[in-house]
């Protein structure tokens, strides 16, 4: 199995180095998380808010933060005019897998950060089954990375990139968002790990299906 071939790894490393130097996506993501969390804290105040609402809000923050930064991997190539350069040094599949992995690492670190901040700042948000919660964060990151990457590849070729990204992503991501919200609610209610297995199955199969279809279709999107 040569799924992550050497070229894909080097595409990932290139994007990571580039991100560390320029911090295009990181700064936008961090600022968005901080702003959104602050807004939630202001609006919740000392009110008593149900845990199912709180687990919904957590994923609303994650979705919109992701929408602010996850398209960068493809949009920056298009803006700098390096798309053709990359097309001439790697197969489309290597590019896709490299960028998919980059987005996965980005969103996983974002999600862990948001989750920790959220638990610390909002007292009423208590996780009774940590195993469900962290598995949801991990599998949710996989699923979000899979669909956000291929949609980013599509919108990079369009004119109004920024506004189009959430518009195209939302209907595609809705099944996964509903699933992670439900799994998070289970974690706050202290459900047994086995009760959330159905949610995890949906998340895993969603990721597998979207990654497979992305690999099949990416060539059409990537080449002009």
């Amino acid at each position, binding site marked *: 199995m040569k799924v992550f071939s050497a070229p894909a790894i080097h595409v990932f490393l290139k994007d990571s180095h580039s991100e560390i130097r320029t911090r295009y996506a990181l700064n936008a993501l961090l600022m968005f998380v901080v702003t959104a969390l602050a807004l939630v804290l202001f609006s919740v105040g000392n009110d008593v808010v149900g845990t199912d609402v709180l687990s919904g809000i957590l994923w609303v923050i994650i979705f919109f933060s992701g929408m602010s930064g996850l398209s960068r991997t493809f949009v920056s190539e298009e803006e700098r005019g390096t798309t053709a350069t990359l097309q001439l040094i790697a197969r489309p599949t290597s590019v896709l897998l490299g960028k998919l992995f980059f987005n996965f690492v980005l969103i996983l670190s974002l999600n862990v950060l948001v989750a920790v901040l959220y638990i610390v700042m909002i007292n009423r948000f208590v996780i009774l089954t940590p195993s469900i919660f962290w598995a949801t964060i991990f599998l949710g990151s996989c699923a979000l990375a899979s669909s956000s990457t291929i949609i980013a590849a599509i919108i990079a070729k369009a004119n109004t990139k920024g506004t189009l990204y959430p518009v*195209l992503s939302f209907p595609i991501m809705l099944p996964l968002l509903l699933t992670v919200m439900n799994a998070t609610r289970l974690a706050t209610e202290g459900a047994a790990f086995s009760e959330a297995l159905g949610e995890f199955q949906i998340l895993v199969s969603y990721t597998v299906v979207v990654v497979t279809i992305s690999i099949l279709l990416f060539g059409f999107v990537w080449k002009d």
Partner: protein
Amino acid sequence: MKSTTAKIGLVLWLTLVICAAILFPMVPAPEKWYEFPIIPGLEEKARIIFFHVPMAWTTVVAFVAAMIYGIRFLMTKNLDYDLRSVSAAGLGTMFCILATVTGSLWAKFNWGSFWNWDPRETSIFVLLLIYGAYFALRSAVDVEEKRATLSAVYAIIAGVTVPFFIFVMPRIMTGLHPGSKGDPQGAGPVVQFKMAPNMLLVFFASLLGFTLLYFWLFNLKVRSSRLELQQQSQE
């Protein structure tokens, strides 16, 4: 002219179906062949099934058609398939809006509010969003070939992710929709109806009529779009 006969036939067919759907009386104990039984809790409001469900069905047919033409475009790079794909999506949007509006009106009288986030309401809303996103994407790409490719890819991705709702919905919401009460499978986006035979007949006649109407409209739309293109290239 064979096609003229077919069109007149379809108009007659739909007229009969609509008349039957609206005029056939509803009685507690049907005796005559044209009498519908009363469904408790729905009464006369049950008649919407003859219009609303075929519209929702046609929305899905149009979506699948748009996706299949998208796949064929990607395989052949023939822009005519893109034209068909976008024509199907345009009609799908129209039927989707009609299904949403009829369903919402009915919900107001049956459930007391226009919108309740019932699983089926959510599914049709997602389809509406996808159609909206599809056209938003199309208007944001200038080059025709690129526009065709990107929207075909988007339609396919949407087509593979939407079925996940079938698994997601039952886990998070309880259905209000007729056909879902007390039925463990009823909370999915597809409704199983238990109907009297004569109602079932009118229902399927309506389903067939609306499907044929869709194909007729689709044919007209494709031909008029082709003529528009011809005219543009002559100018």
